[in-house]
């Protein structure tokens, strides 16, 4: 052992190192065990700070901070309203390809609803506008054999699904506007799906194709462990406030 410059005998030394290590591990375990309640308490303290922060640095601090952007491919589709196309096919009477103008000519629906992600963040009172999916399906005519819909994204990878019962019962929209503006590319624009009562991963971005099928095909994240029926507050083991 080295010689210490002052009288500091070994007996005086304490194993604080391992206590710090174990404390950090303990805090982590408590955080996982308490989970959501502790999370909401800390977010309640931080969110006022986040709102007034002019630097944007508060975005780096973990917690609920409005929208977060996820994309699963290397590049996000770059589409203008002029070159946007939406195919509707499968078990329908009239397979159709719709343009932006076609969508604008259909009856418009407006909903202001919260948007909740399965990873925890929630955006309050988002104003959506677009064509209710039921109205769009009336145009193409759904065959009696159809039971479900598979949605495809212009990113070429992401898919999602809904049963026709869910489409009838729930608020589902082909959304073209978000908070009064045309849906931006980062938000999945110009046209995305909105499934109001379900977690965000059901609201597929860059909607390219609506395919009527006879059976539910689990979507991208559902192949990776998330629930197919993704109602906010009663799926994925979460207890968020439902969205209606």
């Amino acid at each position: 052992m080295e010689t210490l410059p002052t009288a500091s005998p070994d007996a005086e030394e304490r194993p604080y190192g391992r206590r710090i290590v174990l404390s950090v591990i303990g805090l982590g375990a408590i955080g996982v065990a308490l989970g959501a309640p502790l999370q909401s308490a800390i977010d309640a303290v931080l969110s006022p700070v986040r709102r007034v922060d002019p630097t944007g640095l508060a975005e780096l601090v973990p917690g609920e901070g409005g929208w977060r952007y996820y994309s699963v491919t290397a590049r996000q589709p770059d589409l203008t309203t002029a070159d946007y196309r939406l195919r509707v096919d499968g078990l329908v009477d009239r397979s159709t390809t719709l343009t932006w103008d076609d969508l604008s000519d259909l009856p418009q629906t407006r909903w202001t609803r919260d948007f909740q992600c399965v990873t925890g963040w929630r955006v309050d009172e988002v104003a959506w506008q677009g064509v209710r999916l039921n109205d769009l399906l009336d145009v193409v005519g759904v065959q009696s054999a159809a039971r479900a819909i598979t949605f495809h994204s212009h990113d070429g990878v992401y898919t999602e699904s809904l049963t026709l019962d869910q489409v009838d019962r729930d608020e589902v929209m082909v959304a073209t506007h978000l908070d009064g503006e045309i849906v931006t590319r980062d938000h999945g624009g110009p046209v995305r799906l909105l499934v109001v009562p379900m977690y965000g991963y059901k609201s597929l971005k860059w909607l390219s194709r609506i395919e009527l099928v006879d059976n539910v095909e689990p979507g991208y994240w559902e192949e990776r462990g998330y629930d197919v029926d993704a109602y906010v507050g009663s799926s994925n083991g979460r207890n968020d406030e439902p969205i209606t």
Partner: protein
Amino acid sequence: MTSTPMSDRPTDATTNPSPERRFSTAEIAVHAAFAVLIGIGILTAAIMWIDTLAIAVGRRETVRTIHLTVGLLAPLPLALGLLSARFRADAVRLERWSSSDVAWLRARDRRSGRIPVTRFNAGQKLNAALTVGAIVVLTGTGTVMAGWLWSWPTSTRTDATWVHDWTAFALTLAVVGHIAFAVRYGRGDASTQNHGATSTS
């Protein structure tokens, strides 16, 4: 060994390990490997965390795979380091706190030399312990997030995500502080706050 008139100690680190070299080759290798892994971990985390970077880079699955790989490898250099006697001896020194360590951490004039410091100061001990704890928490919560070992409920996975985010945030601050102190006060240099550094066990 030759010496220039201006220097009374070797300047070439590749010559025989001199008693004045603060760390052994094994320790330097462990530090370098650990730093690279943690660095890549922070970089890939930033790509997944900061919206601007997430949008610019995309490829979430690839970034995630790199992040998980370096995360799993991160404890490895530390484990291999335990094969080295000097690494073990330094780990013990980092782990033991004397009463003057506590006093040093509390003192405003801790850099004045009034409070004697042994091979590692209390700040370095604190950083080492927090880093080891953080690595365990990050590996553990990361395992839950990735869905490994068991089919964790999504609620547990999101709770683990929350702890993982905060721990990663704190560790990143610690790393930034660690680098800042190293730049300011010197690193691996026998001339800096290293009473007792010239003897090895």
